């Protein structure tokens, strides 16, 4: 039993709250969940996620789990991945899924949007070279269709190709035959997804959770 988990440490919570924007109650609830998942240890490992049954049927399970262990998402300008995370990192990753509050300026909204899209981008860009290449995108589509068997695999390539072509044509425009398009950069990613209102779609309602009941 780590020292900071036995009692809700208000000071700790307050700093976390300032950093991530969650309210104190929400942090408390998430902390309980963290403890549940990590079986009351200080850190969480990849295996601990396997205890969540509902997650098993999710096609992009592995990518989600990776995202938790990806240092780029910890807002510390670090790269690489770790083997285990503490509560602070867990909370930081969760904070990407907060909803925008009502009184938010346009700049803050834009910032939030960029942060969320950056999270998504990091999920796709596994080799961290700043672009999503065709291979990486193909991998994404394949994972999405991984539950559909053979039919999925064949069309996955077609879909990924078509999608890349679309990005290329939107962002770069007509290209001569000997130019080539390396991959989707973050700016282009922002552009193609501007139709999807990320800041409002990518959120979870954190407040109404009673994790003591849900012992999955």
């Amino acid at each position, binding site marked *: 039993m780590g020292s900071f988990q036995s009692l809700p440490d208000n000071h700790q919570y307050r700093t976390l709250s300032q950093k991530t924007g969650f309210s104190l109650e929400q942090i408390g609830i998430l902390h309980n*969940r963290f403890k549940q998942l990590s079986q009351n240890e200080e850190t969480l490992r990849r295996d601990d996620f396997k205890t969540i049954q509902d997650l098993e049927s*999710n096609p992009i399970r592995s990518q989600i789990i990776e995202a938790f262990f990806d240092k780029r998402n910890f807002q510390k300008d670090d790269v690489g991945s770790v083997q285990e995370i503490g509560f602070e990192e867990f909370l930081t990753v969760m904070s990407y899924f907060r909803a925008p509050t009502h009184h938010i300026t346009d700049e803050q909204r834009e910032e939030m949007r960029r942060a969320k899209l950056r999270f998504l981008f990091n*999920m796709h860009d596994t080799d961290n070279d700043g672009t999503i290449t*065709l291979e990486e995108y193909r991998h994404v589509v394949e994972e999405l269709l991984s539950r559909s068997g053979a039919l999925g695999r064949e069309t996955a390539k077609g879909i990924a190709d078509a999608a890349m072509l679309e990005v290329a044509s939107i962002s770069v425009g007509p290209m001569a*035959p000997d130019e*080539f398009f390396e991959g989707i950069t973050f700016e282009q990613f922002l552009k193609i997804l501007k*139709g999807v209102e990320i800041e409002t779609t990518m959120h*979870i309602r954190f407040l109404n959770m009673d994790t003591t009941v849900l012992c999955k």
Partner: protein
Amino acid sequence: MEMKMFIVVLGLLVGSLMPIGGAASSPDTNTNHGMSEPGHHGLPKHGGEGNHTSNVKKIFPVLSFDYDHVRVPFEISLWVLLASLMKLGFHLIPRLPSIVPESCLLIVVGLLVGGLIKVVGEVPPTLDSNVFFLYLLPPIILDAGYFLPIRPFTENLGTILMFAVVGTLWNAFFVGGLLYGVCQLAGDDLALVDLLSCLLFGTIISAVDPVAVLAVFEEIHINELLHILVFGESLLNDAVTVVLYHLFEEYQSVGTITVTDVFLGVVCFLVVSLGGIVVGAIYGILAAFTSRFTSHTRVIEPLFVFVYSYMAYLSAEVFHLSGIMALIACGAVTRPYVEANISHKSHTTIKYFLKMWSSVSDTLIFIFLGVSTVAGKHHWNWTFVIMSVILSLVARVLGVVGLTFVINKFRIVKLTTKDQFIVAYGGLRGAIAFSLVYLLNSDQFPMRNMFLTAIITVIFFTVFVQGMTIRPLVDLLAVKKKQETKRSINEEIHTQFLDHLLTGIEDICGHYGHHHWKDKLNRFNKKYIKKCLIAGERSKEPQLIAFYHKMEMKQAIELVESGGGSKLPSAMPSTISMQNIQPKKTPQDRALPQLSKSREEEIRKILRTNLQRTRQRLRSYNRHTLVADPFEDGWNDLIKRKRMIELEKKISLMNNHLTVPAPPPDSPTITRARLASDPQAWGIKAGTESIPTIKVDLASPQTPESGNMRDGFGSKASQPKESKEDGGLVMKAPSLAKESKDKMAYEDDDKEPQRLMRCLSDPGPAADEEDEDEPFLP
């Protein structure tokens, strides 16, 4: 010129309607041939000497006039024709559609026609409530339900229900109560109106009408959220209206309502709405299940959708459940499954029939509204009418503002003041209110005529004033308009991705939220329901693939329609090909051989001449198979070819190249090609010969020609042809960059003469049936 002719035709039409109208209302004298000459309607009809019993031999009647026995269908057709011609004419006038919404004009036309009929001395027909509810309303609602955008609807369901249920209740009681107060204050004959009648009136007047809302909102192209809010509200408030209406009507005679009645009313509401939905869902599932077996009788597929939905409506009406909700539920449930089962043509048929019927219904409703205004007995009472207009407006605004304040606490995307204004302003009343008043019994409700007048005034006010001004107001307030952009595949991929991501995060949090249940429902759907209701392989197709195929189909259609010529569909990136998107490590492989232009021409010519040798078959026509049109064959083949291409691509990717690679030096086909006149042949992927696919499958699969071509050219033509085909959707060989045409377009160019040939020739029914029977989404 067009307009003048049109007006002349119209005048004749209206002129002929009047004596018909006259013949309708004057008493029937049954003779063998009732002569009713136009212009003589007041006079008694002169029958021929109806000598049934005498044996006098008459001259054999060469030409007789017997209008009576076709009277009813004739009149109905004339009215429908009038309505449609009005609609035509409306759009012919240059600037009118942008100023005045169609509904207003139709009401005015109705007024004019009604006035004309009255002037002539006849009684204009009124909008019979039965006809309205049983024949005119269902097509509109079915159209709305079938094409209901499910995702925004379910996302905003809470808000919509709040507006529909609580909003309507508030409106009804506010207007009813205050009107009662006004009536009491005003005294004299108004004091006779008791509370229940007022509440009944309040109920009728507070229901936002889907017909009117659709008619106006369709023209202003407002953003999806607002559209679905107002529209959803107008659909779902039917249950509330039905319950309140019956409640007040039942107890009007008794005069009082007890608490038990109120409680029963609440229970009734739940029964009415949920019952309606359940009835609709049952019929929807039946329809979906039936469509699973229609692969051999494609022609009657649309019929099932229509009939099952109509039966859902009627069945709900039998039990006084909410017919509208049943219809919506049926349409919404049927659609995803039926669309996976039926053919492309049936889908188009359903779409167009629904649009056509709802359009005609809509037009007829408004015209009749105008005519009935003239026809009905009115009792104008300044106080009552003016107060009802004002009160209904005030109630609406207060209701919307109050409810939004509460709702915004639960919404992520808050409703702004602009949104609230549009929602309030868009609450139009229409023909449903009118018909409900018409249904009132004048013995029980002595003030019925006054109610009628008031309702009509409110309807006119909302449709004319609000309908006409909403468009400039939307522009003035800079309300967000509907985004016309097509959904791109990237957005689709990411929407799916996000769904899964959010479900995953919810599971990690241990939170059974929105996404969790949606995901569970989807999985249940996929596992059990789709298996039952969708025929064959389609049941396992995930949504992303379905979307992708739809997109492919659309692009293929666009290509075919644009003739594959110089005009390119905008969706196709014209000069970007897969070769531009390369893995970073292979710049050295990009040295591609160039094909000289003359060589290209040669190849084209060879292909063309061979393709013209397609066997010409006669097409037989029978009622059970539709004549396949060459278009559909054309793009079905395109799709087939694309699939072949993709298979080839797969093989090509074994070499880890996306482009036509530099030919591997030891490929036998290449060496053969090199020995031929071509100094530089196209690269071939290894294992070309092992592909048993029909490389040049431009004729139908049964033609021996396809075999010919393969054998005839073997390596030479099939190589360049195949490599040109290579890459599928948008791949393009660099040499063709000069023409900057898409690969598909290039092939279409070849196919052009062939296709023209095929327009003249007729592939046999066997081939047709094969194409025909492909479900809508391949």
